């Protein structure tokens, strides 16, 4: 019981702060698109519409009311799951957004797996060559790799693996001929549950290039922070004593140093994963990946305000939730953080 209240005392304030942030985000999204000098219904009007027709549509969308009232209307609809009518799709924004979320999440998770694997491997390798002639070289290479943005990896990937060698597919989530019975919206899970091995393999191949592009852009940051935390941790007394106890160097690294260096790495991964979630936007647009990013880019080109607002809100919710999860994971792993 006491344990429960202790956990609640840690969790509840964080949930409240996510809720508060979400409220402020909604205000900001609303304000950005309504206070700035743009015509909110320009795209909804048929060409050559008269002023009276214009007024009618303004009224229909509630745009003739005061701005605060408009916000309250919009926000109360939001809480009931109505994000507004898409101007271009002529349906509620919610359904296409909900359909796009699993696609983006699948991409983010695959990219995280690639990025963390490469990043931790790189960090260990850089740590292993510390003090040798290889070290400065490794640092410069990491610096350069860190400068290459995800969309550039995406284009390199498409040009080399897709166009040159024709080894990997680079459009969409799965070949258009394959029919997948959607249950969860996650391609890999849906095909696996249905036992469609061919489709599973096909979906996995489609995931390789976009996930690698995002992962490669993500890995150097993990490498850097892991290396520098390892360099700090290795000087600690407990490492010294572990060595004195006769623990092998390999075991010192993997059992003692890595565990303690994992915490700062984890919190950085949290922050960066939030950014990567945003990075999917462009990578999705490049690969024609039917996720949130493609939806938002299309909406931005078409001036579809409700869709842009909806997508932006989902992105922010995603970032806040990722941060919350990482925050919780750090608390679970590090008892020292639980005080105060």
């Amino acid at each position: 019981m006491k344990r429960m209240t202790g956990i609640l005392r840690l969790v509840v304030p964080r949930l409240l702060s996510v809720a508060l942030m979400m409220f402020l985000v909604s205000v900001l999204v609303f304000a950005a698109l309504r206070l700035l000098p743009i015509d909110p219904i320009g795209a909804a009007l048929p060409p050559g519409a008269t002023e009276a027709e214009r007024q009618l549509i303004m009224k229909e969308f509630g745009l003739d009311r005061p701005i605060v009232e408009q916000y309250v209307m919009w926000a109360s609809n939001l809480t009931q799951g109505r994000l507004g009518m898409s101007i271009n799709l002529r349906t509620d924004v919610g359904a296409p957004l909900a359909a796009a979320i699993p696609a983006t999440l699948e991409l983010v998770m695959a990219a995280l797996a690639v990025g963390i694997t490469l990043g931790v491997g790189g960090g260990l390798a850089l740590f292993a060559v510390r003090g040798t002639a290889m070290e400065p070289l490794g640092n410069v290479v990491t610096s350069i790799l860190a400068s290459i943005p995800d969309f550039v990896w995406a284009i390199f990937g498409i040009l080399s693996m897709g166009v040159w060698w024709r080894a990997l597919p680079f459009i969409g989530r799965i070949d258009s001929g394959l029919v997948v019975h959607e249950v969860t919206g996650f391609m890999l899970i849906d095909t696996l549950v249905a036992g469609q091995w061919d489709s599973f393999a096909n979906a996995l191949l489609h995931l390789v290039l976009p996930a690698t592009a995002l992962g490669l852009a993500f890995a150097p940051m993990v490498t850097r922070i892991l290396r520098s935390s390892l360099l700090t941790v290795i000087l600690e007394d407990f490492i010294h004593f572990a060595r004195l106890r006769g623990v092998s160097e390999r075991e010192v690294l993997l059992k003692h140093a890595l565990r303690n260096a994992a915490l700062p790495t984890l919190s950085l991964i949290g922050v960066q994963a939030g950014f990567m979630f945003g990075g999917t936007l462009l990578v999705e647009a490049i690969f024609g990946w039917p996720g949130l990013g493609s939806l938002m880019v299309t909406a931005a080109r078409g001036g579809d305000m409700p869709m842009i607002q909806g997508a932006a809100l989902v992105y922010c919710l995603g970032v806040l939730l990722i941060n919350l999860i990482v925050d919780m994971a750090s608390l679970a792993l590090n008892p020292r953080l639980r005080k105060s």
Partner: protein
Amino acid sequence: MSEDILVRPAIETPADAPLAVPARGPKLPLEGWIGAILVATLVLVALLAPWIAPAPPNDMDLLALLQWPSWSGEPPLHLMGTDHLGRDILSRLMWGARIACVVAFLAALGAAIFGTILGVIAGTMGGRVDWVISRMVELWMSFPPVVLSLLLMVALGTGVGNVIFAIVLVDWTRFCRVVRSEVLVIRTQNYVAAAQLMGFGHLRIMWREVMPGVMPTLITLMAMEMGIAVRVEAVLSFVGMSVAADVATWGQMIADARANMTEMPWAMLAPVLAIVVTVIGFNLLGDGLRRRLDPRLLARGDTT
């Protein structure tokens, strides 16, 4: 005997050698120089583009569509080939460098000024003001930067000025956070206390005592921010939300080249390489400046 201890042995200097000026720290490290050279080249190309570009950026050579780079043969030569409209890729790269430079410098400057002012205010005023500014930064951080900049571009409309404005509005938080925490540390230093005891005014202390301490970090951050700005501009051009479609930018070139990617991958690769080299240049310069200027890194002897 005591003299021998106190007086250091004179360093033997050849009579004609210039007096050695004691360096404040190690020189700009190698990667800093590489970065500086790359950035200088970019600026030079951008400034001279109207004179050194072989052709105007939108001139179409309809007899030479989708050409690979060619270095010999009938003029007009296209040293780096042409795109699907027969426009000279080298010329477009050079004109694109102008937009990249303008966006990089102005956006980084704007974000630095805006972020620093808020950071200094938060750091010195403390209390409620600090709380409000810190929550604002937190709010901004819950937006993925690409999403926020796209949102702003939809709201502001396209154009170079708006791209710069959007980047400033998105990236001021990077400066605000760092400057605020720097100011919090510097404020407790003895030399600041001494200045306060001498009765210097608030603004003077900020400007003369605190700002010099923040400068190294600020310069480094600005170099990094320029790389980020180039990237963001390319991303926005790529999705068609940056400048008008007839302005040559690197992102626009990538977007244009997509349709003919299979026949002519070079048209896509060329602007991608330009972006990569530019971002690497700014980042290496930033890294180098950080190692050269940051007193804490120097004190620790840590050069990473």
